[in-house]
């Protein structure tokens, strides 16, 4: 699956600080075209910081970010999405006082105009959004807001989708539904980099995983390997050592 020559996205020796606090202490990540890769880690591990740095909302202190062979380490944030990377951020960050459809249309701001086909594709993926297109986004339920955040990110027709904790605060049944849709999105040809605390669900979905602990990568491998790893079972899947 992760053939080296198929590498689409790469982070090399990334370091990020907030003032004097080092949040990311030199991590390297590779994602091949078509993969679903997940970054796991506890609260404060640096998952969100990593994604925000990739989207250029943050400047790294060191390291490089490469996408399709191009160095995007210093590309301005607003140009990232038109290069093919779209980000559904932590906390959803939908535009609450705008309607559902206005949110989706903003998702396609990087395109010249909003493609009807893409809009219909998103509505097909999330029929709930179609029913509520004229509703103010802030009045959606948590799950619906998450759908909107993902749908909005898809409106730019990205090649790679960054998802920051789409399961946060959702009931297990909704998590299942959202992850099923993420799988569908990946099958349609979108590469996915998924950040999660819900390790079990994420490992079931992903091809490969990285485990982040206070700014450092401590483990990586295929999902199968990680699901079987004792360390993961203890720390993230809640299983006790025998």
């Amino acid at each position, binding site marked *: 699956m992760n053939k080296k020559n198929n590498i689409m996205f790469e982070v090399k020796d990334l370091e990020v600080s907030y003032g004097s606090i080092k949040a990311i202490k030199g991590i390297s990540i590779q994602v091949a075209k078509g993969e679903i890769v997940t970054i796991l880690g506890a609260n404060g591990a640096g998952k969100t910081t990593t994604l925000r740095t990739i*989207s*250029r*909302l943050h400047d790294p202190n060191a390291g490089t970010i490469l996408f399709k062979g191009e160095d995007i380490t210093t590309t*301005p*944030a*607003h*140009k*990232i*999405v*038109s290069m093919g990377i*779209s*980000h559904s*951020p932590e906390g959803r*960050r*939908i*535009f*609450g*006082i*705008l309607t559902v459809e*206005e949110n989706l*249309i*903003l*998702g396609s*701001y*990087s395109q010249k*105009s909003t493609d009807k086909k893409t809009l219909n594709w998103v509505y097909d993926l999330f029929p709930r959004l179609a029913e509520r297109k004229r509703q103010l986004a*802030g009045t959606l339920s948590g799950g619906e807001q998450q759908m909107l955040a993902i749908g*909005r*990110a898809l409106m*730019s027709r990205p090649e790679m989708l960054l998802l920051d904790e789409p399961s946060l605060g959702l009931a297990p049944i909704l998590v299942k539904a959202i992850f099923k849709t993420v799988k569908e999105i990946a099958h349609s040809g979108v590469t996915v980099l998924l950040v999660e605390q819900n390790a079990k669900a994420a490992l079931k979905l992903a091809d490969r995983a990285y485990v982040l602990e206070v700014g450092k990568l401590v483990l990586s491998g295929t999902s199968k390997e990680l699901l079987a790893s004792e360390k993961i079972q203890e720390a993230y899947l809640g299983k006790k050592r025998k």
Partner: protein
Amino acid sequence: MDIFFQQLVNGLTIGSIFALVALGYTMVYGIMKLINFAHGDLVAMSAFVGLSVYDQFLGGTTNSLVAVLTIFAATGVIIAMAGIILERVAYRPLRNAPRLSAVVSALGASLVIQNGIMLIWGPRMRFFPADILPATTWNIGGVYISFIQVVILVVSLLIMAGLIFFIDKTRVGAAIRATSIDHDASRLMGIDVNRIITLIFVIGTFLGAVGGLFIGLYYRGINFNMGWNYGLYAFVAAIIGGIGNIPGAMVGGMLLGIFKAFIAGYVSSTWADAFTFTLLIAILVVRPTGIMGERVAEKV
């Protein structure tokens, strides 16, 4: 009853000017959560720039639509550029600084512009010629309406309708609304937030320039420090309407203009300030976010 309608007409005239100026405060606040205290001084400056454009290039021209359009175009461009410079110099470097720093910078910029006007054009009151526009006045059942009043009302309403259309119906307008909600989320959509901020300053100061020229054409006397007076009223109008809310600034400006005219007509113009601030406090007690403020309530 005549005085009622007369003061209504006068109130709508000055209210239009308040509304135009208030839009500059409210749009900048909407995007940057910053009160641009220098806005009123740019409004004052526009009146002086307009007068100089007239004196230099159009001296003696009377009753000329071309002359008036030239004044508005030249002044609008010059003041909008001043707005861009203001944002770059006084606000952009402090984008991530504590809010108080930006407030101090805004007050400093206000003083700099005001003193700049005084240095360039002098401390004495200057006057717009009376005959740039026709001096026609109509008497409609005892209510006097002058040509300039009609111009101010019609032009202001057209500009405001255009602005609402732009904000509500265009792609860039949607980007402006998104930016006013969440800068980072907007960047993720591919919106160049810096460009949106520049655009807001261009639109806001341009509207302010139109307001400043209307002040010159309507009242004729202009003063280097008049920005504080008009700026304060427009700022109050923006708060009454709900700061950050564009239709709110329009409604707030009109209401405040009418209110002020009625105080002047029925009580005394010397009391206008006291009554205005009493009204402001009363409105804020009943509706802390202003008349139309619920739409800008902090997001969840």
